[in-house]
């Protein structure tokens, strides 16, 4: 609720509610720094202490303290009944989670990476996403599937895919993609409290990154609304949408573009399903140009959906074709130089924004 009010008050200041911290990046003296890892850990900790029906299940979440240390300390606090180490059986434990959710518990199922969720995808889609519909509202599934998504560094083709588009195409699922620590805390708490299945796509490379957080974010009742995007940087000339790690790249690109006289507006999508079409369209109606950025494969990706949405609703406002930046249309290579070419870099976003503004640019990497 606080988050919704804050969105509406964007750009204005209201004495009672402090505006989003990242807009006040220059006023960092008051804000504390928190890594995304600690944000997720604290969110899990608070939700588990608030509601005994919440439990965590996954590989290495207990004694190993989490494959990426997200669940550090939780086993000692809550015991092995509520922080369950599982054998390597994704289909099995995802199914068990769904069954537990049917009967009123609130499982948080961790996939070591979302690549492994493909072994359980039958349960995510067929058992979790479709149940409320098939049972006409009798069986709701308050489950959260979370874990790192997308490319890491040098981990090869089978560990680097982005699943945002896959899960976001399925009705019955909510798909969230946090970027900063504030996003991580607020969205994870919202996801755990939500009565529907939520796919929570984190990013391994963001876990160690620190972001400033306000006291409001650190409050244990802090929650962000599902389905609202956040405008990280207000601009006038071109809209850049991004999610997860690409938001960082987009913000850096915006700084570079500013030197060239292009004032970019950066939208952190936060929620891929439901997609915040009204924020995106309102922004495009203001700037008239759009660049979508994502890490995943281009075909049928998130950018494709945003482009279609903008064409459907704001066609007359577009002054240039929509530019889509996505990962290369190949399985992720291992060699470091090839991997850099396969994932969007800041220069790619800068070039696309310039193309959208009809500036002459050197030819982009052959796609």
């Amino acid at each position, binding site marked *: 609720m606080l988050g919704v009010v804050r969105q509406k008050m964007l750009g204005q200041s209201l004495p009672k509610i402090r505006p989003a911290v990242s807009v006040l990046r220059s006023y960092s003296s008051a804000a504390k720094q928190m890594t995304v890892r600690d944000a997720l850990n604290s969110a899990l900790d608070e939700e588990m202490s608030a509601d005994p029906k919440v439990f965590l299940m996954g*590989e*290495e979440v207990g*004694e*190993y303290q989490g*494959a990426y240390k997200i669940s550090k300390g939780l086993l000692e606090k809550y015991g092995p009944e509520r922080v369950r*180490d*599982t*054998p*390597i*059986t994704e*289909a*099995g434990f995802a199914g068990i989670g769904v069954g537990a959710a049917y009967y009123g518990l609130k499982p948080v199922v961790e996939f070591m990476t979302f*690549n*492994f969720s493909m*072994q359980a995808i039958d349960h995510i889609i067929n058992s979790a996403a479709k149940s409320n519909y098939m049972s006409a509202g009798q069986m709701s599934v308050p489950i959260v599937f979370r874990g790192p998504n997308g490319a*890491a*560094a*040098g*981990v*090869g*083709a*089978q*560990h680097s895919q982005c699943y945002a588009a896959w899960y976001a195409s399925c009705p019955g699922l909510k798909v969230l993609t946090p970027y900063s620590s504030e996003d991580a805390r607020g969205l994870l708490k919202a996801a755990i409290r939500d009565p529907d299945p939520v796919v929570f796509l984190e990013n391994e490379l963001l876990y160690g990154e620190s972001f400033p957080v306000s006291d409001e974010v650190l409050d244990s009742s802090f929650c962000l609304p599902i389905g609202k995007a956040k405008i990280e940087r207000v601009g006038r000339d071109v809209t850049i949408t991004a999610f997860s790690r690409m938001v960082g790249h987009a913000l850096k690109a915006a700084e570079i573009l500013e030197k060239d006289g292009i004032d970019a507006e950066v939208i952190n999508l936060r929620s891929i399903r439901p997609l915040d079409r009204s924020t995106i369209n309102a922004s495009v109606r203001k700037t008239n140009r759009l660049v979508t950025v994502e890490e995943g494969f281009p075909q049928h990706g998130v950018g494709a959906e945003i482009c279609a949405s903008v064409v459907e609703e704001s066609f007359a406002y577009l002054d240039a074709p929509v530019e889509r930046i996505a990962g*290369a*249309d*190949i*399985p992720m*290579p*291992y*060699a*470091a*130089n*090839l991997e850099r*070419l*396969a994932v969007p870099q800041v220069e790619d976003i800068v070039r696309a924004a310039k193309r959208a503004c009809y500036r002459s640019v050197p030819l982009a*990497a*052959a796609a």
Partner: protein
Amino acid sequence: MATAFSAAKFTAQPFPLNPASTTSHDSSIVFAKPTSLFLGSTRKLRLTSYSKFNLSRRSGTVDAVSDVVKQKKSKSSPSLLITKEEGLELYEDLVLGRAFEDMCAQMYYRGKMFGFVHLYNGQEAVSTGFIKLLKQQDSVVSTYRDHVHALSKGVPARAVMSELFGKTTGCCRGQGGSMHMFSREHNVLGGFAFIGEGIPVATGAAFTSKYKREVLKEADCDHVTLAFFGDGTCNNGQFFECLNMAALWKLPIVFVVENNLWAIGMSHLRATSDPHIYKKGPAFGMPGIHVDGMDVLKVREVAKEAIGRARRGEGPTLVECETYRFRGHSLADPDELRDPAEKAHYAARDPITALKKYLIENSLASEAELKTIEKKIDEVVEDAVEFADESPVPARSQLLENVFADPKGFGIGPDGRYRCEDPKFTEGTAHV
């Protein structure tokens, strides 16, 4: 423990694999010599009594002790298991595996290698014991811990090291990486990052071998496939599905379980209802054998029988090798959960030291000869690193290659040629 006891009854009966033939019974071997402290860390979990059960019951699984092996055990003076040449070959392969993996660790900490690297230190006896018995056309399917499987199978150390450095001269041109070692020439079918993923693939390779022989009538096709995987995989559904089908269709495959007791930080005992993996074989109609995976000669004897069975068309075998990895799960694993006493226990059973002792005590080789081998391997590994260092990174144009076998993705036309090469195909509105 109740469950253990009732299970004992099952496994004690010889499972009628093929009631008509008796040969299959005799060819199953037991190495009933109990290895002490198999479940080293069980003390912490208070299952010491379980391990005592273990020792006496293990012999119950298997049907008979091969005469050959009985003979060998009864004599104190050697009736040796290997010849000198074989011994030196095995020693060289073990040392290559160890030296290569140690070099990988060094290179990783120097930043030449990156991502996920899983090292095989300590488990070399399993790879050498099995793979050195294979022909070139036999296939090996492995997991992410696949460097040494590739090396044992014959992939040159240079190619593997280059692949790890991400260079274009690697066995997969730098596109696969540590976890995805493939070699068509040496029939190494990967290299899979997902555990359990390789097992159906291996079963398919074995299926092809049988198919070639029976349907395509290539009468001499007796290729065998080995599937290597760990204890964690044995809880995964794909494992059971493949045990079933391999036994059902009598496929020429050996399922080799490298039971190193740990799946990252998850102890085998915490994850598995019945930790005796070899018992899962008879449940599906194939022999299940347990062997000391730290002793390359024992592994080799079991492997001979299992591979022989497969080659003769008698069907699959499940072999559980009790082994241990000396390093953590991967180079990023701090390895805090394993008991140092357990690590020390297995370090004392290092397969390389054991084979060295055997060779010297039985006068098969001298210290000097073994030193020469070690020196040679050091040079091979150094050369591999130099080669990898000097190799170029992949060209930018390589980024988009190899996505399809068909270069432009339009498929193969009725005349057997790539459609995109047919000028007629690109007439009209099609834009290539």
